[in-house]
């Protein structure tokens, strides 16, 4: 028997999107496969690695631990929505400048996490940055350049504000 589908409306990166999804559809799968926004990655499917982090009404959440139907009507920002048109956001530019990514698979999760972090705290200390990214796994960089990139992003944001 086919599963019952639910119609949901999400505001993704400022655009109203509709999807018909079964109740068990994960938000990560909905974004990736129903809406074609494949920038959000899935690294563990159990909420540990942080690759799937998106912003839900501005707050970072694990989209692999969120059912799509539970966020009907809410606003979501994915990595595709961080740039301002063709101009990458300060966080994105800082990651490029500081070599804060290698394979790039965990990167969208870090970018969303850091975007929220710096919005809350535009001038974080070393400890606050470490704490802020300590829920995301990266297997390539050893984190050193990610930490550097967060501080650099804060600098860029301060310069440009």
């Amino acid at each position: 028997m086919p599963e019952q589908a639910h119609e949901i409306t999400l505001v993704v990166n400022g655009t109203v999107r509709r999807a018909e999804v079964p109740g068990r559809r994960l938000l990560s799968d909905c974004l990736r496969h129903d809406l074609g926004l494949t920038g959000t990655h899935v690294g563990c499917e159990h909420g540990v690695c942080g690759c799937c982090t998106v912003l839900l009404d501005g707050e970072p959440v694990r989209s692999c631990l969120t059912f799509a139907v539970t966020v009907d009507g809410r606003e979501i920002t994915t990595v595709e929505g961080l740039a301002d048109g063709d101009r990458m956001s300060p966080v994105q530019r800082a990651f490029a400048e500081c070599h804060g990514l290698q394979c790039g698979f965990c990167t969208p999760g870090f970018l969303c996490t850091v975007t929220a972090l710096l919005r809350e705290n535009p001038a974080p200390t070393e400890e606050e940055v470490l704490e802020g990214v300590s829920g995301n796994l990266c297997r390539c960089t050893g984190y050193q350049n990610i930490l550097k990139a967060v501080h650099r992003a804060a600098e860029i944001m301060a310069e440009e504000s």
Partner: protein
Amino acid sequence: MTTRLFGEPVQRREDPRLLTGRGRYLDDLGPDALAAAFVRSPHAHALIRDIDVSAALDVDGLVAIYTWEDLPDRLAEPLPLLIPHPALTHGRTAHPLARERVRHVGEPVVMVVARDRYLAEDACALIRVDYELLKPVVGVEEAAQSAQPVHDDVPGNVGAHLVQEVPSADGRGAREVIEGAPHTLAFRLDVERSASMPLEGRGVYARWDADDASLRVYSSTQTSTSVRMAVAAKLGLPLPKVEVIAPDVGGGFGVKIVHPWPEEVLVPWAAMLLGREVKWAEDRREHFVSSAHERAQVQFVRVGFDDEGRVLGLEVNILHDHGAYTPYGIIVPIITSTQLPGPYRLGSYRVEFSSIYTNTVQVTPYRGAGRPQAVFCMERTMDRIAAHLGLDRTAVRAANFIQPGEFPYDQGLIFQDGRPLIYDSGDYPESLRMLKELIGWDSFPGLKAEAAREGRRLGIGIGCYVEGTGVGPYEGGHVQVTSDGRVHVSTGLTSQGQGHETAFAQIAATELGVPLDRVSVVTGDTRRFGYAVGTFASRAAVMSGNAIALACRKVREKALRIAADALEADPRDLEITDGVVHVTGTPAAAVPLATVAVLANPLRYAFDAEAARATQFAGASSFDRPPVQEGQEPGLEGRDYYSPIRSTFASGMHAAIVETDPLTAEIRILRYAVVHDCGNLINPMIVEGQIHGGVAQGVGGALYERMVYDGHGQLLNASFMDFLMPYATEVPHVETAHLQTPSPLNPLGIKGAGEAGVIPVSAVIAAAVEDAEGIPIDRMPISPSDLFGLRGAS
């Protein structure tokens, strides 16, 4: 304007797409593809009595279910044993789907194809497999002594046994030398299992074009060219009808060099059979139980040495846990046994390994590929010698170093490429001097004593390694300059985050004298370059980097010849700057490379203004010779290959200062220093990034990561909740210094850098903890509870 970009910390060209969500990883492709999922064995060792799929047949969206009995011809045979070796007398590989027997938890038994992954997994859950349980064989020592075989025709579970012996200068074997040495020590070391664990798992997506009878396969692999050949062979397709592309790959670290995975042949086969696109993306639990692990070894060491700590004889006997199958041969234990001597001149050396089957996930290379175990063994030995003699640990190492004047240095062993293990260059004393300065080795005792007065325990450790990089047999490069002045570079090997698009573009831009933004690089796409080996063994920059440089030199030579004709100059007087060929010292006498590309391809038809300049009525050509001269080809392009006589040997030394908590036994790394020598640097930013990432994986292996199997062969920690990969909070800041000893073996003078960071970390941390605690550390990883237990036992 300078176009010398080799050696500059150029920002990566990959980054804009990866930072904006425009990367294309395997599961981002094929939005309309059917999904495959697998029923995998829940038992470590069992016979399959029956498979009942009836309950699954009513699942909505189900398309097909396959078991081993459905597989045709060559697909029903065991998967290839990729790297045979005479010592691997009992190599065994798995069938794509289990045939009658399963040998580890996670082995694929049934493939289901359905409309989406949710539905495919629904069907998997309803398939009943009736198993008859067999006694599982777990643990390498247990397996070596077990009466229960993992494979019935492999007595004693020994897949391979290999001895290499390098006698002393006077012809005595290591055993004899050790017997007669002034000092001898014997001890045992243990290294646990870990795994590559890229954040993107494996994945395969296949499209069959029935009209064209051709197959396109995307795989998250470290070798698209070899996957292509394996898929063509397994599916009985002509090679030109198969193309394989590695899209953006979310990390590899070794595990994705294994091929063809069961899924890599089954998914394309299903796509052909069904006439539909089919995709499989591995989930994290699947990656834990059905890809590959590495590292586990037990080592029995005997060493004889003199009063200065010089090693007169070293004997190492290794039990290597190979898991259930040996698809990648015995590369890992060969590397352990041959890289064990490191930067040292050993008086004599005997190494013996037995590669043992167990009912666990197969063991294939993970970044470092046997070297972390080798270095753990050698460096723990050096520390024990120092402790025995009461000498400084760096003095014992210095007493054993191969000296800069001794290169090329023949270790007398046969390396993983089947060739003599001869070090090409290095400067180990200088490396040690730099490291001691960087970490403050000589002032550490003061620091330690000061901390002790505050009740704190500090320790310092050091580890040295030599890494054979850039193994053959070859890689190639193709370079084409088109009439718009763009330079298109391709090479067959793949990328998994190493920044090849950037590093190879730097090489091409430097060699050709063009701006970096004119160069584009494609890797791992068999449509662009069909001959390649793959990305492993820290070989990509050495192999493809040099091949691309050589191809560029061909293009450059041709460009200069054509430009010389056009400018009526001597090619030897020409140079290329910023994409323009000009007479040295006379910038006005110039022709852009774009125009040279036009002139290189004589045309009949003019489709645009540029092309019109190359037609038969455009002048320029001589009636005395053909439009394309003998021995030449149209177009401004070149292809060349780099095939080294042997590997090039990078080296490095790490040191760490750790603090152990007197109460909780928590281990904290306070400082971590690296001196690294990979010859000439193409892009220091990228090299440093590779070191940082390697050290982080090393810290994981030293302090946190282990595969916990119970006696039933169940992997108890097959999730990121329980397998502890380091977060930012666990990885120290890495201080680096570079020594550049160019390799004399290749045109660019480079050595590999990809694996280096991970190699000595376990040895370094063990040494530092030992120094802090005064307790011998002989097994890794070491957790706070392990250390707490050791304190209790001492």
